[in-house]
Structure formats: C-alpha cells, structure tokens
C-alpha cells in the first residue's frame, strides 16, 4: 500500500513523543542552564596556569621554558620570558613568564601542552561557559585570567592533582637532598682544598 512506510515512520515518532512523557530514557534533553549534566571526572576544556600560595603572580609555577609554546599544534600560546629571575617553589632561581597568553578561540583542547610541561605548571580546566561578546579580545586570555590556584586544580581533577602534588613533592625533596649533598660536597671540597694547601706545591716541572 502506498504510504505504508510513511505511516510506519509516524508511528515510531508518536511512540517516542508520547513515550517521553512517561519514560525517562526517551527524554534525552536537559533544560540548560537550570539543569546541568554532570561532568566527567577527566573532562577537559582549556588550559590554565597553576599557582601555589595566595599570590598568583608570585606563585606561578611556570618557569617560561616555552616548551609548550613550541609543542602546541595550532600555536595558540604566546609567552614572553622575563628579563630577571626569581625564586620558584623549589627555592631555585628561575625565569617567569612576563606575558603568557592563550588564544582559546584557536586552542583545540588537545592537552599536549599539559603533557610536555616538565614543571606541572599548566593543566586543563573544565570550565566551559566561556561565551563572550568580544570575538577577538575576549577569547585571548591573559596571564591573570589563566592563573588559578592549586586548590582549584585539586577540585576539578582530584586524582591528577594528587599525582601532580606527589610528583612535585618528590621533586622538591630531590632538590633539597641535592642541595644538602651539594653543601656536604662543598664542605668536603673545602676541607680537601684546605688539606693540599698545607702541603707544599709541587714544582711545575715535577708535575709534567
């Protein structure tokens, strides 16, 4: 019969339409923004910069090594290295980023910058409500907007944050151990230096 196929389709549509009133499975939409779908634990949107402590400017972990800038596939990170150095979380003298911009209209959320960063300083955020009326300026996020505290990171990705904290703690411990070893070695070297200084210098001819 002509039209049978169309009627079959209509029946299917009617079943779904009426079914959505009684069965939750058939109702697939959410009334955003009143209702929100839960986010997945490892959801990622755009990168942010982690800082420790209270002052975002002082606590930024980024040392401006520019690895992420080089590795970013669409080249949406722009970094200007600082001229001077300052003390970082390990207690070493390091550069810091004078400018750190990410153009999130270009960023494709690939997470490569996070993977290549050796200092655990850039991480993925799961903030997705970033719509803006300024198409160019509004989507170019600067250092001050990118900086978010480590607590924020712990909140959005608890598991990863724990791993990163552990890695950092190990790193700091290593540095401290090294500093201690260095200090001991220096002391030893100083002692050793003091010793040959007491013995008479061999003549250059004898040394050859």
């Amino acid at each position, binding site marked *: 019969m002509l*039209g049978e196929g169309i009627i079959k389709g209509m029946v299917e549509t009617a079943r*779904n339409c009426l079914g959505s009133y009684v069965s939750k499975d058939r109702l697939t939409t959410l009334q955003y923004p009143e209702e929100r779908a839960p986010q997945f*634990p490892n*959801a990622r949107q755009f990168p942010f910069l982690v800082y420790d402590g209270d002052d975002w400017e002082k606590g930024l972990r980024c040392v401006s090594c520019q690895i992420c800038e080089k590795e970013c596939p669409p080249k949406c990170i722009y970094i200007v290295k600082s001229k001077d150095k300052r003390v970082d979380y390990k207690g070493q003298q390091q550069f810091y980023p004078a400018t750190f911009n990410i153009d999130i209209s270009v960023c494709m959320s690939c*997470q490569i910058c996070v993977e290549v960063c050796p200092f655990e300083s850039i991480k993925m955020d799961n903030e997705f409500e970033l719509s803006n009326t300024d198409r160019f300026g509004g989507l170019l996020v600067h250092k001050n907007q990118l900086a978010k505290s480590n607590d924020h990171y712990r909140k959005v990705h608890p598991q990863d944050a724990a791993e990163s904290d552990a890695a950092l703690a190990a790193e700091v411990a290593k540095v401290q151990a090294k500093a201690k070893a260095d200090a001991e070695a220096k002391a030893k070297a100083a002692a050793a230096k003091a010793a040959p200084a007491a013995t008479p210098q061999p003549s250059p001819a004898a040394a050859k």
Partner: protein
Amino acid sequence: MQDMGALGTPLMYAFREREKIIDLFEALTGARMMCNYMRFGGCRVDFPEGWLAAAQKVVDEFPKFLDEYESLLSSNEIIIARSQGVGILSQELAVNAGVTGPVLRAAGVNYDIRKVDKYGIYDRFSFRVPLGDHGDTYDRYMIRMLEMRESIKILQQALKDIPAGPIIDPKAKLRGFRPKAGEAYGRIEAPKGELGFYLISDGGPNPFRYRVRPPSFINLTVLEDMCLGNTIADAVIILGSVDIVLGEVDR
C-alpha cells in the same frame, strides 16, 4: 537524508544516539571530539571504572535504535522515490576514479581494506562486507545501515576479548625520535573510505614529506558524473549520499 526533507526527526534521533557514544569518548579521554588518545605503542589513559560496562550497554542497545531509524526511513515512500535510481555510479568509474569506502561498495565492488589488508586485529573478527548492486543513492544509504550492524558485531566481539594489562609500551617514545631514512604508507578503512598516510623520512626528527590521502576528497571527484542527467534537486541528495567531511575536502 536531511536534504530530502527528513530534517527533524531522524536527524534528532541519530543525535540522541551519537550523544551516548560521545559521552563514552568524553568519559574515557576527557574530550568529546579531539580525543587525543592514541599514542605510539599504546594509548594515554586506562578505562575509568565501569567504562567497559557502559560501552557494552551502548553497543547492546544500538541495534534497537537502528531498527527504529530504519522504520522511519528505509521503507518511506518519499525516500524511495527520491533516491532509487538517482545518482548512479558505475563500477568502472568508481574503480577508475579511486573512490573507496561505502560509496565504492554501494556500486558493488567488494573492496574493504579491513578484509584486504587484515591490518590490526581485524583478522580475528568475523564480519561481512555489505555490497550494493545498483550504485544509486538508496544503495549508499542502505550500505551504511548494514555496515552499522556489522560494526556492532565487531564491537561485540572486541568488547568480549579485550585483555587486561598495560596500556602502553614503556619503551615507546612519543617525541624527539628519528626514524630511519625511507618511506612508508599506512592505510586504514575509515568510515568514509581509504584513509592513508604517506611519510618520507630523511632521518631527521621531522618528516621530509607527509601527505594524507583523504577519502572524502577523492570520493567527491565523481560527484559531477553522478549528477549529470539528474535534476538540480537531486544534486543535493547525491552530495549528501557521498557523505563528505569538509575538513578533508578543503585542501
């Protein structure tokens, strides 16, 4: 299909199912589309808890959705009237033009790289390759429906056999390696056809030459031959039946 006036319902139903699949992607990799999951020698993260069960559920429910979808479209008189005998692609032309994927198989050529090359672990799965015999728009639609059912079969087998173990070869290097000088071509059966990557290395860290064989782009080249002799309104349907991704075509 939406070009034929079936814009609302089937498309939205398909989106509903797509959402479930994309949710699986997001739960596993963190992103919906730019998954960035595969690595040389393995993959990036392991399954979160309960992911396999969720995937199994989606796979199990998918045939039901396909039945629903087909009851909307496959025997719909409007679809049949507008697509059968429209945009016929002959076997000869399809082979000569290098068309691959469902478009080629709808013309009746038995060529599926998963069967021809048996790459990866595809030799372990039992599945069939549906073939069309008219090469028209309706065949291309039907081939995709049948292929989805075959894909479900493959997924069922794959989910059953998936082994536990390390997810990545610890010796594999992700960056900064130098392949030996030479050239290589790798190809897979992508949803649109043969997706190939051709690389020439001169021994440095970056490829000397790198070229992608885009299936959509090559399938699109026969559009003119398929459209000739049909009405303008049919051209839209024929274009839709080639199923292009414009990212591949724009080059």
